[in-house]
């Protein structure tokens, strides 16, 4: 007995010591090679004589599309008739969209309903001149900004070339990797109507039917990780390549991956399959929670010209994309990508640029513009898994106030619920939730509750009962195997088991009269191959029952959010009379919406689950599940509080999520590598249209030490549009006030800087919502002509821009390992330190580090709107006047900037006038404003200026004067000081007393 006990202890100790240091469990998640369609696509594109034409565009079939654009039929060389339809659209902003689908598929090929990703078909290009030359159709058009562009559709093999200003930027199907697997009847090798059916084994058709090392595993069912994916509809994948031409130093985008900003050319393709990945790792092409399959390319063309273009792959099924180079060193020259998706239709959009700004504009023209977030959403969010009680919430709130640290929103994670039945409260810990939230509202702060999409299976839970009774849950398919009715016994099927022995002859001694007629002995019929059985197939009308999986509550069910009726129902649950305990300051967090299914394949829903809406297989819509969840929530909140700007945070997302939701980069780790990777991840997401984005400050798993915490805040306040501190249940508390005083003061200083800069953030969000400019963006977006921003490792991976005015360099190592940083300041007229105004010329600078700040520089020539008064929440700042910091171009003494003001919280601004959008220009000692819009008098917000700080003056100032409504007022004498830096520049503070009211006409001049 003693021995046994001792052994078990030994075992336990062994088990504990071999516990891996935090790492993702790779065995849980499929690679390209482990998934049948990606594996067979790789074989398909490595076939011999790949360049030979297979699919041909039939120019004579060209027809106009009702929404503008053209369609062509496409015929495979080995098919009798054309089976594919190619649609080509040219949009006014400068986009070429190419779609390919099946003309008459056996099953409906899933297409994203119009409006769900591509909001409305964007306006077609005004003047498209078409011409058919031999072997190609040419479409000439001009982008919104007047640049001449061309789309050339090559007929055979099918390929599309897009050029701008005479230079080809992208070529689709350049390497003839197109694959399009048409639906076929069960277990058939070929789809209907294929030529050379006489030799089905040798016909070269698609990745699921060809003679070159065809891999037929997984066509009709596919096991992985203890689950078997039933595929009664068979193979239906599609794929194509795209080449980015010119000298392409870097590709960007492909969110969401925990990778670098300048996308590495990994051996393994990048994967898009929204998953709940536990403890994800950095520098990986593995799939994460969301998918925006967009590539941004930089093309260095002849003549020193550099342009930018974008490529979007719109497909919600599992998708892989592989980046490739011609050169073995993987540098320079053109870059290629191949794409393959499991099902659906091929839908690609080329955004022709030619500048990053126009690529962004084109992307949003296609997918829609994001709404203005409420100002509070840009403030500090305090979250934790979990604040455990009403008292806990009240304590966190008052501790922030005790130390006068600003914050806007407190969050509750899953533990607040009654047994993880969302929309409910744990009554023991939260007996009076309404009072608790009202108390937060009284401080002019907001509240966010988590509401996950999995529904607890519990008769007592009304949402469960109602969704079940409405039949809205995703279904599980229980297939019965039946005889294939189409499989008939061949006429020549040998049924005789015995035949007379043909070798036997009547023995000579045989006496027929005596022995009767001679009969040859029976032998086994060698032609007999067994009894005929019809082929077994899955019954096409299987039993459908509600799919049940495991999640936080235990047994859970998953609503079909692709169904507008389900979304309507879901949205209605947020009504204040339905969702008890909440008030109009309560907003929603949708987590686990990949969806996460703990016991499902790859921790998600089986692909063969059925969405009752259209009887679509889950595989067809997987990457959009999360999108439909957060969209339903957004629309519900919109109805709950008419006029208010909803706020939803989602973990899973798709192209177009920016119209509804903030996202965060999921369950990151308290590690320096995760801190650093967040720069690239945020940058990639904003390039994908998702500007309201951030990573959990401090990392979700494990506990950051004080230095990491400080560095994380210093970076986050400057580059995370969505600024949330969150932590795992098992970590110690990490609210700013729990640290030692020095650390607390550093965090507080960072947060104060964030609040001071809120007018800049808010103005940038207006630029995003109205002009499609990403709020935060990689350096190339603003400095495309500076080659360092395409290739300088530090500039690419450690630095990022906030708007066009602030460059931020993240510090991602402890001071014991890094005492200085090399900051690359791109080509501009100069840069001013955000901390002391020191002037720096462009180029690389070594920056000595201390713990009080990280390097950050305002670009010379910008006017930055700020508020110097730091309140406890952003709402408390609405009546405070502005400070304008003018960072002069030292050569010209000029600067430009913007300031956007509205009521900060309602949708009134959408009327196109109830705001102030002010362009600011400082020139020749005078600061002037040009404004559009008009703030209604009733909107009680300040549009006043209390202070103007001017950096980069050649001499000290002696006087200042304001002119308001034609009346000149002498201002107090400005105070000047000498700035650090070799340029010996001055800075001056102008006290604007009395305040300037920007609602009226004004200017300010200095001497």
């Amino acid at each position, binding site marked *: 007995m003693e*021995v046994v006990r*001792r*052994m078990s202890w*030994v*075992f336990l100790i*062994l088990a504990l010591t071999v*516990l891996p240091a935090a790492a993702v469990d790779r065995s849980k998640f499929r690679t390209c090679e482990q998934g049948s369609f990606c594996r067979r696509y790789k074989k398909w594109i490595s076939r011999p004589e790949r360049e030979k034409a297979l699919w041909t565009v039939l120019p004579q079939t060209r027809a106009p599309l009702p929404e503008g654009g053209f369609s062509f039929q496409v015929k495979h060389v080995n098919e009798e008739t054309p089976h594919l339809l190619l649609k080509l659209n040219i949009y006014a902003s400068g986009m070429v969209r190419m779609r390919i689908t099946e003309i008459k598929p056996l099953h409906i090929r899933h297409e994203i309903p119009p409006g769900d990703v591509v909001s409305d078909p964007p306006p077609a290009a005004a003047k498209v001149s078409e011409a058919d030359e031999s072997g190609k159709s040419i479409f000439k058009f001009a982008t919104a900004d007047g640049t001449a562009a061309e789309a050339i559709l090559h007929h055979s093999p099918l390929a599309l070339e897009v050029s701008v200003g005479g230079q080809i930027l992208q070529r689709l199907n350049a390497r003839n990797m197109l694959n399009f697997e048409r639906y076929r009847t069960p277990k058939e090798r070929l789809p209907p109507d294929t030529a050379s059916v006489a030799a089905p084994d040798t016909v070269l058709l698609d990745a699921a039917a060809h003679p070159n090392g065809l891999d037929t595993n997984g066509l009709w069912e596919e096991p992985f990780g203890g689950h078997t994916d039933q595929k009664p509809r068979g193979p239906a994948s599609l794929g194509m390549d795209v080449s980015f031409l010119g000298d392409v130093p870097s590709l960007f985008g492909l969110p969401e991956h925990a990778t670098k900003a300048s996308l590495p050319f990994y051996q393994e393709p990048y994967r898009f399959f929204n998953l709940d990945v536990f403890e994800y790792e950095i520098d990986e092409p593995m799939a994460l929670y969301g998918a925006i399959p967009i590539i941004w390319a930089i093309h260095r063309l002849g003549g020193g010209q550099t342009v930018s273009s974008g490529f979007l792959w719109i497909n919600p099924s599992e998708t892989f994309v592989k980046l490739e180079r011609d050169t073995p060193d993987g540098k320079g020259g053109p870059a290629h990508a191949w794409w393959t998706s499991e099902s659906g239709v091929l839908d690609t959009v080329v955004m022709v640029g030619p500048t990053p700004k126009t690529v962004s504009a084109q992307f949003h023209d296609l997918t829609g513009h994001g709404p203005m977030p409420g100002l509070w959403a840009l403030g500090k969010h305090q979250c934790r898994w979990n604040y*455990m*009680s009403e*008292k*806990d919430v009240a*304590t966190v709130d*008052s*501790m922030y*106030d*005790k*130390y*006068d640290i*600003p914050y806007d929103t407190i969050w509750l994670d899953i533990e607040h619920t009654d047994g993880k039945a969302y929309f409910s409260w744990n009554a*023991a810990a939260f007996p009076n939730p309404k009072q608790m939230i009202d108390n937060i509202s*009284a*401080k*002019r702060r907001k509240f966010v509750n988590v509401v996950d999409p999995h529904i607890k299976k519990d008769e007592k839970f009304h949402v469960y009962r109602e969704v079940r009774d409405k039949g809205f849950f995703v279904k599980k398919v229980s297939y019965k195997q039946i005889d294939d009715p189409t499989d008939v016994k061949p006429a020549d099927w040998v049924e005789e088991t015995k035949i007379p022995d043909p070798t036997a002859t009547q023995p000579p001694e045989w006496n027929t009269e005596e022995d009767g007629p001679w009969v040859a002995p029976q032998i086994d019929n060698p032609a007999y191959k067994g009894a005929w059985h019809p082929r077994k197939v899955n019954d096409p009308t299987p039993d459908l029952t509600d799919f049940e999986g495991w999640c936080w509550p235990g047994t859970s069910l998953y609503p079909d959010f692709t169904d507008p009726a389900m979304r309507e129902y879901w949205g209605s649950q947020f009504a204040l009379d339905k969702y008890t305990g909440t008030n109009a300051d309560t907003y929603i967090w949708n987590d686990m919406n990949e969806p996460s299914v703990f016991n499902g394949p790859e921790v998600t829903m089986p692909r063969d689950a059925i969405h009752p809406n259209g009887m679509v297989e889950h595989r067809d819509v997987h990457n959009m599940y999360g999108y439909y969840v957060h969209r339903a929530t957004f629309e519900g909140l919109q109805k709950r509080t008419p006029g208010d700007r909803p706020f939803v945070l989602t973990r899973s997302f798709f192209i177009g999520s920016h119209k509804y939701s903030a996202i965060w980069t999921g369950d990151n780790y308290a590690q320096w590598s995760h801190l650093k990777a967040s720069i690239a991840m945020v940058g990639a997401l904003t390039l994908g249209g998702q500007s309201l984005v951030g990573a959990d400050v401090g990392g979700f798993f494990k506990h950051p030490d004080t230095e990491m915490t400080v560095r994380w805040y210093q970076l986050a306040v400057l580059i995370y549009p969505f600024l949330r501190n969150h932590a795992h*249940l*098992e*970590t*110690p*508390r990490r609210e700013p006030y729990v640290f030692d005083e020095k650390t607390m003061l550093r965090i507080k200083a960072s947060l*104060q800087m964030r609040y*001071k800069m809120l007018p800049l953030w808010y103005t940038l969000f207006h630029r995003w919502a109205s002009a499609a400019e990403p709020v935060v963006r990689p350096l190339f977006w603003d400095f495309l002509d500076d080659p360092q921003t395409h290739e300088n490792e530090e500039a690419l991976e450690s630095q990022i821009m906030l708007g066009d005015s602030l460059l931020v360099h993240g510090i991602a190592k402890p001071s014991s390992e890094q005492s200085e940083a090399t900051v690359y300041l791109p080509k501009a007229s100069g840069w001013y330190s955000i901390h002391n105004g020191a002037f720096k010329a462009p180029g690389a600078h070594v920056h000595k580090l201390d713990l009080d700040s990280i390097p950050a520089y305002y670009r010379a020539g910008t006017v930055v709107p700020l508020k*110097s*008064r*730091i*309140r*406890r929440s952003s*709402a*408390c*700042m*609405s*009546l*405070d006047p502005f400070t304008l910091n003018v960072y002069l171009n030292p050569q010209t003494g000029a600067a430009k900037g913007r300031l956007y003001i509205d009521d900060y919280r309602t949708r009134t601004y959408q009327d196109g006038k109830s705001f102030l959008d002010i362009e600011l220009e400082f020139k020749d000692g005078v600061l002037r404003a040009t404004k559009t819009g008009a703030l209604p008098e009733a909107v009680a917000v300040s549009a006043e200026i*209390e*202070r103007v700080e001017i950096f980069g003056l050649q001499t000290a100032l002696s006087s200042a004067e304001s002119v308001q409504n034609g009346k000149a007022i002498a201002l107090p004498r400005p105070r000047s000081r000498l700035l650090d830096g070799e340029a010996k520049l001055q800075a001056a503070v102008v*006290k604007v*007393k009395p305040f300037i009211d920007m609602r009226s006409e004004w200017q300010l001049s200095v001497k």
Partner: protein
Amino acid sequence: MKFTLLSVFACSPAAVIRGVAPEVQSKYLQSLHCGGEEVALSAINDDYCDCDDGSDEPGTGACSGQEATLFHCPNVESTPQVVYASRVGDGICDCCDGSDEAHLLGQRACPNTCREEGQRQSAEREKKLEDLRAGLKVKLETISQAKQQKQEKEEQIQRINGELPGLEAQLTELLKKKEEADAVRLQADCKTELPRLRQKVKDLEEKLASLESQLARVQGETTSTTTKKVVSEYAKWMDGADAMEDEKDETDMEPDTTSQDTQEVDGGVASNAVSSDRADQEEDPLEKELKEMEGVLKSNKDLRSRLTKELEELREEHFGFASLRDKCLEFKSSEYTYKLCFFKDAKQSFTRLGNWDGFTSPTEAVFKNGEMCFGGPARSLKVSFQCGATEEVVSLDEPSRCNYAAVVRHSGACVETMMEELESPRIRHPKEEL
């Protein structure tokens, strides 16, 4: 009184600097300096922040974000307080007199709630005073008892310390007597036993030789075939486990290995002697006396170390908590029953949250090294004591996993100086809130 105060304000406008406590007003009558520069009187409270420390704007929110200069709310009929400048003019009524939001007019103006607040506060103070008085009374008693106990314990220790040398001498004497008696008996035993033992040794040696030769033969045959193949990690581990088991067995025997032979011999032969020894002991008065003496010594020493520990555990500054000795307080949550046994351990139902680790401050203590959380830290419980006449657990939470925090009401946390504060409340400061 109120009237006079107002009229003073009215007569000397320079003294009415908004947001400044009456006793500090004079500071603003002379010229104000900040950042090495003089600030003009016109810049005081002009809603523009000239000084980094906010000293030119004591009465506006212009310098919000710093905390060197705070806004003073008179809160007539309640307690005056200072608030951060960030609270001034932020649309939230922080002071009961609404002076922090004086710009809000009409319907949006802050109602003056000072009378109610004052009444509520004085009622609360009364209650607290009552508790404090009662608590202090209990605490005094506890302390005097603790002092008495301390004295008793020290006396006891002293007594033990005094008696021990004598007792030890007696023990030495007894041991010596016993040794002599044993020697005499052993001599007698040897005479009879020695020949028999010699014969036994011889027999055993012969047996050993024959066994060894057998073993050598067997090993010769098997070594070639017994080389085990490691088939799996599990098998490898099992081998390791076997090895460890052997090792353990060896260690078990270790103390006796040197006398293994004799032990074998004893096993067969000397058992009679041993049992007869035992029988003898029963009657041997010397042995009995020795045992008793050892017992007395041990209990004295145990008592001394227990008393010393108790004295160390509860220092004079924590005598107010002496009543917690040998006491457990219970707390029932919806899921668990917590049991806090001071100076011993704390439990959550059957899970040990920690062993008593002592006081960490005049009113805080900690239980540490409780049961390990899976993959996490060992559980621990922090206790904060709150002044009160009764002894009870007010709350018990788990702010982060496996780190528990309890608030316990106890008279030990009552301090005389609280009286002063409650009787004549000072200006409230934002950092004191909570």
